[in-house]
Structures are given as structure tokens and as C-alpha cells.
């Protein structure tokens, strides 16, 4: 069998690049996307290349970033923007292949083997994709071109930003083997520590190590890593469009006064559920897990989650599940300071599942239609133009809006 042609495309400093496109006045200056600079907390999600030069890294607290780079501008994340750009990038990829597997919202593997005879070799396709993304989206990508997914990913990391790196079968010994072993996908902190102990520092050294030694120290994973290092990765690019490119959508609030009974909690939970469910619908996602987080007035907090029967973005289902979770898990020894809801384990509208015999499909359909109608009314006349009766029992509590104050959690790397 002849080699496959696999591309891995990685949008450089994705969030920061999208923000810079929309803020021409900040280009060339250090910026970071993350946190909430008003409230002066949070972490850096992405820094642009100028800020990276100062030593600003993803995951730093904002104050740390400010310390290494006093000039830095912080921009609050706007996930909806990034998802829009992510979709537009996917549309460009779709011109070349239907075999596209997103990895988070800024990376994708593409199997272009079948396009090579029409569009030219992998390098040529990569160059075309890179140009299209640049002119249509105004951001840059790094692309790795190889014969398997692992090396394609290595290739996109090899040179950044705005670069194309090939790692073909006759090249990988020169290009890949000298790299540190931690660059290999799935070599995390603990595997790296074990390998270091064995005196394995580079991918080449890993490739030449006896598999029995690796198996002894790392188990099955040792064998897998060894085959990766030797370019033996047959895993297909999965046509995977049922998983959302993000992990969860959530919303939490510190209420204007402490909550003291079930009824008050219910009002706040329903308000939060409205915004979480509306955001899920807006992006075409449904959640399979509902999670609540509760913090009492002595700042003791906990979270509880549960898988729901069928994936949902129906406000009522999410709110009811959240309230049920709360009832089961809170004993009212102390009043509550803040409370939150998250919809997690997200799937897209392409996700299908077995219908539940004991659930009334018609009722669900009706609720879906009702939610759509409410969304439409709110889009045209504002959030407060239509409200649940429950909200009128305490206007102060139900005024915690909601949509502006949301959180979207990016996918974890090794999720």
C-alpha cells in the first residue's frame, strides 16, 4: 500500500490572532486573550507572538503576565468569534477532503490522499490551504505534511508561525529523531519523566530502545510510543463531526444577596439554565452532562454532575436536572453565595442516539419549538422581553443576566 498524505493544520495563537484581526491598532504590540481584566483575575488563554517573546505563556495568571510584560494588553475572550472562525477554517478544509478530524477548535487533521491526483501533492495542497486561510480569515496556520497523524502533528509544531513542514518517510529520521521526546503526542509530564530516567531524551533514542524495556516501564503505552517514534501510526483520520470543538458551556453568578431557600435557588438556576441552553442552541450543540457548582457564604464550594437521558439543549430539561442535583446535594446549613450551571460532554446536531421509550418525544419537540420561539423573541426585542413566571417572584435575583456573563471552556489537550 502506498503512503497516505496526512496534513495537520494548526491556527497560530488562534484566539490572539482573531482578536488582532479585529483590533488593527494593537498589531505588533503584546496582547493576551484571557481572564477578566476588570475583575483583575483569570489566566492567559493565548498570547500573541510579541507577548510570547517577553515570556508570556498560556496558563499564566494575568498579574504574572503583566510582570514579565508591563506593556501587555489583555482582551477578554469572545468564544463565539473563535467558533465562527473555526467553522470558516473547516469550510476551507472541506474544499480538499471530507476526511477532517478537528482537535480542539484550532487544529485539524486532514487526510488528503484521494485529492493528491487532482490537486497536487501534499505540500501543494498545504500551501493552497495556508493561502486561503490567510486571505479569507486573516490569520495564519502552520501545517505539517506527513504519512501519518503523529508526524503530521509534529510537523505543524516544527516551525511556527505561518509555515509548512514536510515529514515524509525518507525525512523523518533526520527531522523527527533529533527532537526531544516530549514533543511527541501523548508524551505528557509523567511519561517524559519515566523516559528521562531511562536515559531517553530524543525521539530517535526512543525509537532505538528495546521494546521490552519500554513495556516494562511504561506498559502498553511504551509500545505505542515506540511505534509512533518509528513512524508506525496507522490510525485513520476520523470523519468525526458529532463532537463539539469545545468541552462545555457554563454560566455562574454571585447573587446580589445570599440565597436562603429552595425557591430562591430555583429562580437563579432557571435564569442560568436559560442562558446556558440558549448558548448551546446558538452553536448547534447539545449537552449530555449537567453540572452544578455551589458555594456557600463561607466560600466552601462543591460541584455535582450527572449524565442526562438524552443529549439536550432544552432549557426546561437542563434547569430541572440542575435543580434536582441541587436538592439531592444541599442540606441548607448555610446560605449560598454563588451558584453555577454547566452543560458538558457536548455533541453537535449530527449526533444521533437511541430514542428513549419512556420519554415523550412529542413533548420534547414542543419544548424545542418553544425554546426556538423564545430565542427569536429575545433576539428581536431583548432578553427581558419574555420571561418565565418564576422570574417575577424576585426581580433582583432573576436580573442576573445571563448571556453576557458566560463561560465557554476550551477542550483540554488530553481530554
Amino acid at each position: 500500500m502506498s503512503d497516505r498524505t496526512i496534513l495537520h493544520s494548526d491556527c497560530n495563537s488562534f484566539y490572539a490572532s482573531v482578536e488582532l484581526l479585529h483590533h488593527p491598532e494593537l498589531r505588533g504590540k503584546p496582547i493576551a486573550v484571557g481572564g477578566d481584566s476588570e475583575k483583575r483575575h483569570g489566566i492567559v488563554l493565548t498570547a500573541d507572538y510579541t507577548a510570547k517573546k517577553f515570556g508570556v505563556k498560556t496558563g499564566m495568571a494575568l498579574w504574572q503576565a503583566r510582570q514579565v510584560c508591563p506593556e501587555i494588553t489583555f482582551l477578554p475572550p469572545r468564544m463565539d468569534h473563535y467558533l465562527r472562525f473555526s467553522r470558516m477554517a473547516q469550510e476551507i478544509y472541506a474544499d480538499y477532503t471530507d476526511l477532517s478530524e478537528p482537535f480542539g477548535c484550532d487544529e485539524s487533521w486532514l487526510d488528503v490522499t484521494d485529492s493528491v491526483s487532482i490537486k497536487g501533492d501534499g505540500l501543494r495542497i498545504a500551501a493552497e490551504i495556508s493561502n486561503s486561510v490567510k486571505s479569507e480569515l486573516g490569520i495564519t496556520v502552520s501545517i505539517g505534511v506527513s504519512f501519518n497523524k503523529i508526524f503530521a502533528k509534529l510537523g505543524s509544531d516544527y516551525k511556527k508561525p505561518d509555515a509548512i513542514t514536510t515529514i515524509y518517510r525518507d525525512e523523518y529520521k533526520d527531522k523527527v529523531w533529533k527532537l526531544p521526546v516530549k514533543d511527541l503526542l501523548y508524551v505528557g509530564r509523567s511519561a517524559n519523566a519515566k523516559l528521562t530516567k531511562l536515559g531517553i531524551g530524543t525521539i530517535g533514542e526512543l525509537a532505538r530502545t528495546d521494546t521490552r524495556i519500554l513495556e516494562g516501564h511504561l506498559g502498553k503505552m511504551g509500545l505505542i510510543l515506540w511505534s509512533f517514534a518509528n513512524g508506525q501510526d496507522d490510525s485513520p483520520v476520523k470523519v468525526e463531526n458529532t463532537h463539539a470543538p469545545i468541552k462545555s458551556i457554563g454560566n455562574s453568578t454571585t447573587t446580589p444577596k445570599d440565597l436562603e431557600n429552595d425557591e430562591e435557588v430555583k429562580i437563579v438556576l432557571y435564569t442560568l439554565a436559560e442562558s446556558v441552553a440558549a448558548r448551546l442552541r446558538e452553536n448547534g450543540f447539545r449537552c449530555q452532562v449537567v453540572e452544578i457548582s455551589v458555594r456557600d457564604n463561607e466560600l466552601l464550594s462543591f460541584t455535582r454532575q450527572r449524565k442526562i437521558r438524552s443529549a439536550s439543549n432544552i432549557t426546561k430539561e437542563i434547569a430541572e436536572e440542575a435543580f434536582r442535583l441541587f436538592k439531592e446535594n444541599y442540606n441548607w446549613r448555610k446560605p449560598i453565595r454563588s451558584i453555577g450551571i454547566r452543560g458538558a460532554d457536548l455533541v453537535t446536531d449530527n449526533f444521533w442516539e437511541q430514542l428513549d421509550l419512556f420519554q415523550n418525544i412529542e413533548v420534547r419537540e414542543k419544548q424545542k419549538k418553544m425554546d426556538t420561539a423564545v430565542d427569536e423573541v429575545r433576539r428581536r426585542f431583548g432578553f427581558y422581553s419574555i420571561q418565565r413566571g418564576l422570574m417575577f417572584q424576585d426581580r433582583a435575583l432573576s436580573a442576573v443576566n445571563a448571556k453576557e456573563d458566560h463561560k465557554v471552556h476550551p477542550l483540554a489537550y488530553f481530554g
Partner: protein
Amino acid sequence: MTSNKIYVDVIAEFTKDGRLLPISLKWDDGRTFEIQRVTDIRRAASLKAGGVGTRYTCIICAQEKYLYYEGNSLWFMERAGA
């Protein structure tokens, strides 16, 4: 600092074959310009104005100008000389 992204009022036509074509636009000083011809339509980013959309290459007063449809019912242009 003034932005180089100028949102403009646009009169446009939805054609029966499903296309959206701008007919005329109102610049931020109140003058209205007729779009004589659209020579190209493609998705493009405007680095100058800072945005992305469907870019219409328009002939206005015998000059080539870009008009962007952002997709959220908003149209914008780049300020000249920016």
C-alpha cells in the same frame, strides 16, 4: 483614534437565484454612492479595517472599492488612506 472600519448603510437586492447584491451605499459623511458594477465576490479578511466577510469588489465613480458584508446584517468599508 478613529477606526478604519466604517459601517455603512447599504441598499441591496436579493436576486431570485439567491444572490445578494449591493446597489448603493451611504458613506459616513452622508453622501450616497451608486455601485455601478460588482466585479468580484469572495470571502476575504480585511486587515486594514479588521474584520472578515463576503468581499464585494465594487466599481464606484469609476474606482475600485471593497465593500464587505459581515454576515450579521452589517456592511463595512475600509477608510481610504488608512
